[in-house]
């Protein structure tokens, strides 16, 4: 570890290069996952410019099977399922991003403080984590969402409440391990104190497992958001959210196409994130692989 400030930019540059070199060694499945996620990211950013039907307008007869006009058919209100599926990404993916980001932020901060300070901070945070994790995630999310009322904002809050403890545990374990390393002792001996030690000397070495986990959880959050919408606690109609679209299709056994579009969309995102997450773990975190 260098202590010369001037050397830092070069160090981070070579580090970026190293990361890039590592990424190029990603297995093919992980690359496919990355490509799918890239597709959805582009969709979210540009779908409003695409020449597809208005997802909220009745554009054809109701319950029509897939045809050249409506690639995935029409739903019970005569809306284009293909257009709704693509537009659904604008709901599902940003929500999953926000939920994962909030859960990571909240969980990591609490976990890091807990691991670094120990004592009663640790006890309080960890008991809170235990209590939260004691509930099955879907049940807790349902309870919180039902209490707050339906709506995507409330469903997101519910999901953050369900998800943060995982990151708290993860970060605490990392901090506990890194805290004992020699360079930290050296820093403390050199006069560094308190949060500065945590921020400068410990945290930079703790992020990898969190990032891998966050990638994998992204798909799980989409799934949970869809589940909440499916049971009527998430997105409110007429939003083309994937879970509520599946819910609309679930009662229509023979009109399979209504649930097919959003179903495939969810499947693709969940698969993509687990492929990518697996790949990243193999590269960065061989211990748990």
């Amino acid at each position: 570890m260098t202590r010369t400030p001037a050397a830092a930019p070069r160090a981070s540059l070579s580090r970026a290069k190293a990361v890039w070199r590592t990424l190029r060694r990603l297995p093919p499945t992980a690359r496919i996952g990355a490509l799918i996620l890239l597709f959805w990211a582009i969709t979210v950013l540009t779908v409003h410019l695409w020449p597809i039907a208005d997802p909220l307008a009745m554009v054809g007869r109701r319950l029509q099977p897939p045809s050249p006009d409506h690639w995935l058919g029409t739903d019970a209100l005569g809306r284009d399922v293909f257009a709704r599926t693509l537009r659904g990404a604008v709901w599902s993916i940003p929500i999953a991003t926000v939920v994962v980001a909030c859960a990571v932020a909240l969980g990591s901060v609490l976990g890091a403080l807990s691991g670094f300070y120990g004592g009663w901070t640790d006890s309080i945070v960890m008991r809170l984590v235990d209590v939260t994790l004691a509930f099955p995630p879907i049940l807790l999310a349902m309870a919180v969402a039902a209490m707050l009322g339906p709506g995507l904002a409330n469903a997101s809050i519910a999901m953050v409440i369900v998800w943060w403890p995982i990151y708290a545990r993860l970060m605490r374990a990392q901090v506990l391990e890194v805290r004992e390393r020699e360079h930290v002792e050296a820093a403390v001996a050199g006069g560094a104190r308190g949060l500065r030690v945590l921020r400068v000397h410990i945290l930079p070495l703790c992020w990898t497992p969190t990032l891998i986990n966050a990638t994998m959880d992204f798909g799980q959050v989409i799934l949970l958001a869809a589940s909440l919408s499916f049971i009527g606690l998430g997105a409110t109609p007429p939003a083309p959210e994937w879970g509520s679209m599946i819910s609309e299709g679930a009662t229509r056994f023979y009109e399979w196409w209504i649930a097919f579009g959003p179903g495939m969309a969810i499947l693709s995102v969940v698969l993509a994130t687990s492929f990518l997450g697996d790949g990243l773990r193999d590269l960065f975190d061989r211990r748990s692989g």
Partner: protein
Amino acid sequence: MKHFSLKQGLSALLLAGTAITAAPALAQDSDTLVIARSMDVNSLDPSRAFCDTCQFYLTAVYETLVTLDADNKTLVPNLAESWEVNDDFTEFTFALKDATFADGSPVEASDVVWTFERLKNLKGSPSFLMDGLTGAEAVDAKTVKFTVEAPNAEFLNKVSAPYAGIINAEVAEANGAMAGEDAAEADKSEPWFLANSAGSGPFTLASYSPEAELRLAKNDAYWGTAPAFSEVVVTQIQDAVSQAQALETGQVDIAMQIDPDTAKSIRSGDVTTEIVPSFNFVYIGFIPGAKGMEEVLTPEVRQALALAIDYDGMLDFTVGGNGAKQAAPIPNGFPGTSGLTPREQDVEKAKEMLAAAGAEGLKLTAGYPNDNIYGVDFNIMMQKVQQDFAAVGVELELKPLTWAVWRDELGAGEWPVTAIYYAPDYYGSGQYIAYFAMIEGFPWVGRASVGKPELVVNPAEADLYAKALATSGAESEAAYTALGEEMMKDAIILPLVSPNLVLAYRNDIEGVRYSACCNLPLAEITRK
């Protein structure tokens, strides 16, 4: 009836799965009748029960004094062989047949008096049937006389409701049932009624396990014509598609809740499906007493919104055309409805009226139970309303809710628009007036006004209602027609669709029909 007790959610789905695997292997050729249904039982005590499942259970196990004939209009003798009504419809005298209860004891006037007093004093959901009852008297062992405080031409129809089935007073009292004034607190017999029955009907209760199975056994001591089956099993199957599959494979003989769309998809040649008009309807209700809506949701604005709805399209979107439009909150075919014309959409006029009322750019919120009732998916229905309102420049935000939250928020006036449904308990238009009319003290005045009845009460309706109850025949019908017109003018309740009902059963089953009072009369069903 207000069906507020529907079970929802994952647990129900799981149970539906177990119900399918646990059902008897094959129903054909046995003398057991198996029926698929998503049960909504709130109680099996006749004076407390209030649900669609209760209607046909109580009809099979308890018997009413009079009942409704297959034409769904005429009252015919049941436990009473004849009855007399005085000229101003305040005294009703019934002569009882020589019937016996399942335990062999005779059905006597004292049982009838006890049952009706208990029904009244328990103050349960069906107690409204005995509203205004001032006297119940056993003239002799086989004659019973009832007095009501104001003329009530519909009293006879009310006693045909399954909830007025006669209970064996001695047996029920021995198990904790009470009929006195304090029955609402003192009666502890509800659990007993979940495992036992005390009626005179063709069946008795064998067992009931909530969310799984309701089992009836033939009443061997039945005083009338014995039923064809020795056992009837109602098995819990949650959704229409699963019910259709169970019917196609022969796991069940009758499926009670198949919607017309699912009926179309049944391919088995062993299954008969008939689509018949029902007396059920779904409606949206306006709540001018909701927060901040007093000055907004005026009669003119409500009228305009009623004109904005595309009723023909609604019929197509909700039930694929398998239903009927309905003018006022009285089901088609009930007294007084033949003179009513359903509303038609008129977008231009709606816009004009909204502009005249200064209600451009109106924003409303609709809270409604997130459920599928009688084949109508409320989410689909409300999205259609949302689009129709948008066409006249009114923005409608949708809030699908669980039943518990819906009930809470309805009482608090959280939103100005809601959607819900209603099914009859007996043949007669009075029950609809008693529930929907804008007459002070009536349930929907409370709901729509949230404590400010002057917002919605329509003074013309109370007199018309009194007139309808004090007369019979054409005169009474004319009063109900006038009431229907007044309620259309109120524009508080907008019936959207009266969905058709599918009778779906195996080809070897006969005698399945839809009854306005009793849903599905089990004793009439036979196997070829």
